[in-house]
């Protein structure tokens, strides 16, 4: 909080007044970006502007008693609640007074939308006399250290990466291969050394053979030595690559394994927050970045750094004056190349953007070829393609030109170094301070020195990207996994199936409850039908049963034990789920059925398939039970997939069964078959069924009607029809709609 605002606050704060929350908007009004502070105390709401004057918002609201020393304030008793209105690109918090009139509006941009959603809920809780239950942690949008806005919420600040820590952690993956890594380093050093030898030999050839025009025997020896060095160098190169790739790929393999394990045990909550694509890209792109870094970049950097140091040492030893000339263009090479690298990167980015636009157009128009033809738009598509194609050509040309400029500029600076050495070195040769061979060696070394310098401009960027990738991977690995192996957990080898919700409340966001004070007791073996509009909380109730989430208040007990105490493996092992669209893995039908019980015998699989009415269609397939179902089971029809899912659930033999609209979107004869299968599956198990079709609901022992997160009605089908309440209306509308569909065909 800025000083002038806290000063203002201290002027008006009463002795017993305790600040609960202070929060700033980023828009003073809908017209200006500026801070404005909302302070919630245990007595009132205060609104403070950042300016020091206190008179410029008289026009906002009229009643005099609203201000206290230029601070807007409202006693909590006069506040009825608060709500937010979502606007385009932002939102507005409305503080409502007891007479229904809004006392004030607070505008904020989208960056703070989540925060103010929680605040509104908090104010409403306070005004109802409840404790304010704000989430203790909001997603971080700015880096805690440098206050830079983060590229993704709760993400990694690319500027503040603890590079050394990340590097250390990366290197830990090499620990099992210590000896090989040591060997690798040795080979690397040897390789560098070997690379430095040939110029010395050529120096001898020139000085001792070519210049004196004598010593033919020596020439043969030296030439042979050159050959030998090359062979040794080649050998070193091969063994370096060999070692480097085996070690590097193994380290990467271990890292990917860690990442995958972490992903599998990640609580479901983390999957809500992140996009699936983002998670997959950590597995693919980020590990790729790290891979390239570990396998190619690190050896390259080590090799070239050694090389540069070695060459500089030799040059200084040979002639420090000439070396200074050599070094003269180096700063220019580094600065110039890093400048051009930046532009190069912009070009490459642009190029890949254009390229992806072209290919997505291609993809779209080929996939949609029927539509294109049906609307006779071939010519227009062609024109669109031409435009993308021309764009691509243009950026390619500019990129290529910049690339040429890059080489030109660096070579230009380098040639200065070469010029100096030839000129001053030549003078030294004439003055007999240097031999010709030495000069030639010098010049060879210069080129060897300059080449790696060219690429140093890019190393930093490359390294940073790899580190950011590694950091993103480690972030997943470090996320707390589900409490799978809690030491105090209660083992439950066989669940009876008694379920009890005890004033259970839950919200995906703490401020917005999806389920409120749910009270429900289910006897073992009972079948419960869950009814309600979409968004009423049916699916959430089921998610709680699977313990994908934990209740925020109240409790959920299974066989009298709080679900949070039951060993997760025992719990999930005895819950079966048949969803609306069943996910099948890309393996054989038999393998899919036995997914929940990998060791099942073929007889058991057969029985399960028969019970699920799946056997009849399986045997008509050419490969029968050995048929591979394709990605997500796409070689099967919806009804077939559903029956396999039921067979899978039957074989899994759950004690608690969950049917999530298992029979919707199927035609009537198939549905009948599935109904039959389901009734076999349900027998003797506690079942929760979400269904829209009344036929499914009729077989339920009791129906639970949910509305806006609350249970509004419980009873059998007949009872609920008699009371003519919520369920009755629900049935009526459904009958009417189906009548309309029947008429209109």
């Amino acid at each position, binding site marked *: 909080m800025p000083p002038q605002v806290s000063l203002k606050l201290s002027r008006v704060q009463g002795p017993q007044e305790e600040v609960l929350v202070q929060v700033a908007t980023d*828009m003073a009004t*809908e*017209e*200006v*970006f*500026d801070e404005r502070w909302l302070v919630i105390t245990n007595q009132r709401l205060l609104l403070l502007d950042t300016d020091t004057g206190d008179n410029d918002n008289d026009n906002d609201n009229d009643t005099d008693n609203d201000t206290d020393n230029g601070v807007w304030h409202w006693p909590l008793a006069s506040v009825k609640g608060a709500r937010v209105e979502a*606007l*385009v*690109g*932002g939102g*507005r918090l409305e503080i409502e007074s007891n007479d*229904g*009139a*809004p006392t004030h509006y607070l*505008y904020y*941009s*989208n*960056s703070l*939308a989540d925060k103010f959603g929680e605040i509104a809920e908090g104010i409403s809780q306070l005004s109802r006399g409840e404790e304010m239950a704000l989430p203790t942690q909001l997603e971080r*949008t700015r880096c805690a250290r440098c206050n*830079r*806005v*983060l*590229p*993704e*919420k709760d993400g990694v600040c*690319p*500027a503040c990466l603890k590079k050394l820590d990340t590097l250390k952690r990366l290197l830990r993956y090499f620990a099992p291969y210590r000896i090989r890594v040591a060997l690798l380093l040795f080979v690397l050093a040897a390789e560098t050394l070997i690379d430095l030898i040939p110029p010395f030999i050529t120096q001898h050839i020139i000085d001792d053979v070519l210049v004196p025009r004598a010593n033919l025997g020596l020439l043969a020896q030296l030439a042979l030595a050159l050959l030998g060095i090359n062979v040794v160098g080649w050998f070193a190169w091969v063994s370096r690559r060999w070692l480097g790739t085996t070690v590097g790929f193994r380290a990467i393999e271990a890292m990917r394994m860690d990442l995958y394990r972490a992903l599998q045990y990640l609580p479901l909550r983390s999957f809500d927050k992140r996009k699936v694509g983002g998670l997959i890209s950590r597995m693919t792109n980020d590990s790729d970045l790290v891979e390239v870094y570990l396998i190619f970049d690190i050896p390259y950097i080590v090799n070239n750094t050694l090389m540069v140091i070695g060459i500089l040492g030799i040059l200084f030893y040979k002639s420090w004056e000439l070396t200074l000339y050599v070094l003269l263009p180096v700063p220019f090479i580094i600065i110039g190349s890093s400048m051009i690298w930046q532009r190069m990167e*912009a070009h490459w*980015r*642009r190029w890949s*953007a254009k390229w*992806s636009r072209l290919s997505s157009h291609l993809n779209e128009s080929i996939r949609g070829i029927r539509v294109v033809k049906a609307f006779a*738009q071939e*010519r*227009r598509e062609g024109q669109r393609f031409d435009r993308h194609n021309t764009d691509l050509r243009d950026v390619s040309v500019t990129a290529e030109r910049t690339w040429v400029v890059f080489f030109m500029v660096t070579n230009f600076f380098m040639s200065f170094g070469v010029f100096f050495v030839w000129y001053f070195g030549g003078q030294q040769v004439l003055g007999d301070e240097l031999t010709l061979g030495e000069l030639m060696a010098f010049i060879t070394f210069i080129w060897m020195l300059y080449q790696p310098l060219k690429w140093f401009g890019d190393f930093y960027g490359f390294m*940073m*990207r790899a580190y*950011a990738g590694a950091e993103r991977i480690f972030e997943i690995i470090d996320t707390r996994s589900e409490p799978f192996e809690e030491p105090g957990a209660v083992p439950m080898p066989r669940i009876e199936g008694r379920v009890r919700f005890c004033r259970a409340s839950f919200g995906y966001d703490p401020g917005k409850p999806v389920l409120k004070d749910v009270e429900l007791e289910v006897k073992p073996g009972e079948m419960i039908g869950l009814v309600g509009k979409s968004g009423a909380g049916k699916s959430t109730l089921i998610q709680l049963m699977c313990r994908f989430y934990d209740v925020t208040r109240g409790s959920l007990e299974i066989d009298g034990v709080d679900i949070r105490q039951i060993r997760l493996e025992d719990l999930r092992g005895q819950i079966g789920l048949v969803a609306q669209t069943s996910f099948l893995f890309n393996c054989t039908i038999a393998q899919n059925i036995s997914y929940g019980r990998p060791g099942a015998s073929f007889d058991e699989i057969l029985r399960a398939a028969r019970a699920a009415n799946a056997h009849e269609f399986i045997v008509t397939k050419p490969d029968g039970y050995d048929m591979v179902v394709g990605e997500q089971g796409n070689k099967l029809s919806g009804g077939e997939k559903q029956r396999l899912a039921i067979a899978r659930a039957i074989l899994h033999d759950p004690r608690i069964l969950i049917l999530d609209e298992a029979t919707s979107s199927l035609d009537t004869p198939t549905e009948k078959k599935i109904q039959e299968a389901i009734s076999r599956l349900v027998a003797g198990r506690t079942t929760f069924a979400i269904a829209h079709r009344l036929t499914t609901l009729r077989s339920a022992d009791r129906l639970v009607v949910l509305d806006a997160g609350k249970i509004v009605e419980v009873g059998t089908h007949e009872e609920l029809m008699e009371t003519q309440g919520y369920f009755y209306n629900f049935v009526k509308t459904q009958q009417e709609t189906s009548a309309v569909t029947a008429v209109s065909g």
Partner: protein
Amino acid sequence: MATENGSAEPAKLNEKPGEKPGGKTNTNGKTDGKRAVTPITVTHPENVGVESIQLFREPPWMLRLTIQDDRSYLRVKIVRAAPLSHPNRYICILDAKDEEICMIDDPKLLASEMADIVKEELDRRYLTSTIERVTSVRNEFGTSYWDVLTNRGEREFVVQNASENAQWLGDHRLLLVDVDGNRFEISDLNALDKKSQGYVELVL
């Protein structure tokens, strides 16, 4: 909602400003002058004559709509149908459940005090800021950090993957959406100073 088939029976308020946009937007390649465009006739309950629309604030913090001689809504919301391409036309009035009540094709046809209300409501709903100057843009690790002066004052924002989150609305008109979903518009790139243009070109 399923009244699409009612073309045979004319609704009570049946003058069709809806044809104009239908004819206009249908320009994709077919307006070679060879084919006459078949007029599209739709009878929709949403089709309400401009003169029967009464908007007023009562109580002052609530916006009310009365369609003369027909019905009244206690709390309505005013939105743009095409906020980017037609910001000043095709204005929809939604009810408390976000369902459309009616559309005003051209708010200029409204009585002036009601046109004012519409403008006020739209101004407060659309918080897109217009960029007037780009102070600096840094491009790091595929993310661009912008520091700009807008019509609402100075602001910093971050755009990730600029090629995806920048939308060209015309040859020189650009919309940027930042990581939080805030919107920033450059209404005419050429009208910005040279330095600002340079920054934009560096990123896009």
